[in-house]
């Protein structure tokens, strides 16, 4: 779709036609560093106008050099920080001879030097130094830019040497114009100049090398992570999907999908299993998964509050499991709802199904599940169990265990199985 691509070309056009965007350093048409030609391209005026402005500005106490240097540093930073676009691709006017370019550079250098000589704020000599350093840096750094890679090797070396020469010369002039250095020994000055010159000239390469190293390292980390995710998905999700496609039985397919879902959730949140392992919330979820898997009936668990698992809670959990299994096996329900609420005094838990239901008074004494595994177990643990059911109305099992039973210091208040829970009166109809 046209208009959504973000090539430098379209960004440049967009920048000129719609809203203003940051000028880019123009490597292709640059005479020094491309500041003037970049701004000219952004404003749509000939580059020579901007260049002339800089030279004239320079004549006013050398401000042109400061403005140019500042803009250059800023635009260079903006490009490295990926804020401004890089101008690439063939540009009209590219085919000028290098002789023409060197002549232009020489003229600008001379102009800067003369202007600086007359009026620079740092003193005339220092002005020349600043001018030489700027032009020299422009030349030297351009050698390393990608736009110049097409130039023949010898031309690049000439350009680099010329740039280095100008920088060193400029620094020399600059440093000797300061009193302390001029009176110091010549050796110190020379070493300083060579050192600063080398660092400044090689700056872009050093930066590029570090940057490449860093992005390579990040790419490696990303690809490692990707490989790990791919491996896990292959071992788990893809295998399960393949299995599901082969399974004839719909229920078996659902069970596979649910088990895979739980496994994937635990993998996505590695703390989940261990965080929930010791709590009633986590155990109930686990119990629900087991029942779902064994009996193929979805179990929806809602837990309010949480408490750590101990002996009485384990009894509660086992009774809950038994109630769920009963519902799944005998009631013919389509789903089971489990609701557990932990408050300051006790833990109350409901297991409800919407299946066939039964008449609790006529339960076969052999149904040990109800009598032993649910009611008996809860009473032994210090809690209670109530079973509400009518034929055709589903079944609800209510389990209660006092929390004070968890902390013997408080003294256990045992709630018997016969205790009528609140809001049960309507059931007596």
């Amino acid at each position, binding site marked *: 779709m046209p208009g959504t691509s973000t090539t430098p070309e379209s960004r440049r056009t967009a920048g000129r036609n719609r809203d203003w965007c940051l000028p880019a350093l123009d490597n292709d048409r640059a005479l020094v560093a491309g500041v003037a030609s970049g701004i000219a391209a952004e404003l749509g005026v000939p580059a020579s106008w901007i260049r002339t402005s800089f030279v004239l500005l320079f004549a006013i106490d050398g401000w042109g050099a400061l403005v140019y240097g500042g803009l250059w540093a800023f635009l260079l930073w903006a490009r490295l920080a990926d804020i401004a676009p890089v101008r690439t691709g063939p540009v009209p006017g590219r085919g000028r001879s290098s002789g023409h370019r060197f002549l232009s550079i020489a003229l600008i250098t001379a102009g800067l030097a003369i202007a600086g000589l007359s009026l620079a704020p740092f003193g005339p000599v220092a002005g020349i130094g600043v001018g030489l350093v700027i032009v020299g840096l422009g030349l030297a750094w351009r050698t390393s830019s990608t736009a110049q890679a097409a130039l023949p090797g010898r031309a690049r070396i000439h350009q680099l040497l010329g740039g280095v020469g100008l920088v060193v010369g400029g620094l020399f002039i600059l440093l000797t114009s300061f009193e302390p250095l001029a009176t110091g020994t010549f050796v110190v000055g020379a070493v300083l100049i060579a050192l600063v010159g080398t660092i400044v000239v090689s700056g872009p390469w050093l930066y590029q090398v570090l940057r490449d190293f860093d992005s390579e390292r990040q790419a490696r980390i990303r690809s490692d992570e990707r490989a790990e995710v791919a491996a896990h998905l292959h071992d788990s999700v893809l295998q399960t999907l393949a299995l599901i496609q082969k399974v004839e039985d719909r229920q078996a397919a659902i069970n596979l999908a649910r088990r895979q879902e739980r496994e994937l959730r635990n993998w996505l949140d590695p703390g989940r299993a261990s965080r929930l392992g010791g709590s009633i919330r986590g155990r109930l979820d686990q119990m629900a998964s087991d029942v779902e898997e064994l009996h193929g009936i979805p179990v929806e668990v809602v837990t*309010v*509050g949480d408490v750590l698992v101990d002996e009485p809670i384990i009894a509660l959990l086992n009774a809950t499991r038994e109630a769920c299994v009963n519902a799944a096996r005998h009631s013919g329900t389509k789903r089971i709802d489990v609701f557990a*609420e932990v408050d300051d005094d006790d833990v109350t838990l*409901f297991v409800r199904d919407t299946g066939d239901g039964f008449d609790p008074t006529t339960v076969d004494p052999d149904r040990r599940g109800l009598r032993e595994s649910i009611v008996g177990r809860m009473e032994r643990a210090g809690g209670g169990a109530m079973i509400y059911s009518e034929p055709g109305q589903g079944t609800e099992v209510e389990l209660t265990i006092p929390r004070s039973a968890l902390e013997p210091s408080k003294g256990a208040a045992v709630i018997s199985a016969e205790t009528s829970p609140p809001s049960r009166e309507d059931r007596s109809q």
Partner: protein
Amino acid sequence: MTYAPTVVLVDDHDIVRAGVTAELGDRVQVLGEAGDVGGAVALILDRRPEVVLLDVHLPSGTGADVIRGVRAGGGTDVRFLALSVSDSPDDVIAVIRAGARGYVTKSISGEDLGDAVLRVAEGDAVFSPRLAGFVIDAFSASLPAPADPELDLLSPREQEVMRLLARGYAYKEIARRLTISIKTVETHASNVLRKLQVSNRHELTSWATKRRIV
């Protein structure tokens, strides 16, 4: 022909959208589908469905962003039902507070989902057991002195309704259980939803993060 509300589906997974469309069948009229916040807001404002089935997580934002975008664009009469696999309370409470009329999990059966859409289209609140559990949790955190008891606390009857919902009771069953009319149950549910949306209770926003440190 029975009444079939108009619906827009917002979910970034094609498979889920296809599955939901298939499950709902001809119980609703699907007007369109969207997979991100911007597309959803534009589509909903254009088609003006009665109900939007809204995923809580989207690539470019959340379900709450969609609701706010639609409201800001003048779609005040559109009703939202959150449909998500997320079981994180923060996400659910956020989408309800933004204005959704209910929340159901994606494991809901097609039949129940159809009922839920119909109920939302008629202006009622839809509570899955899980949402009812979140609500009880949110309002049960002890508060020394509620700023506005009218909004910051659930009435005993509302608490009772929420507990029965959490236990898996349908509105009809709750009505029979409490010997009140279904309409009254619906009113209680809507009032709870409103309290959840307008209460300034500090707990309601910070509770979700706190309860992770049980």
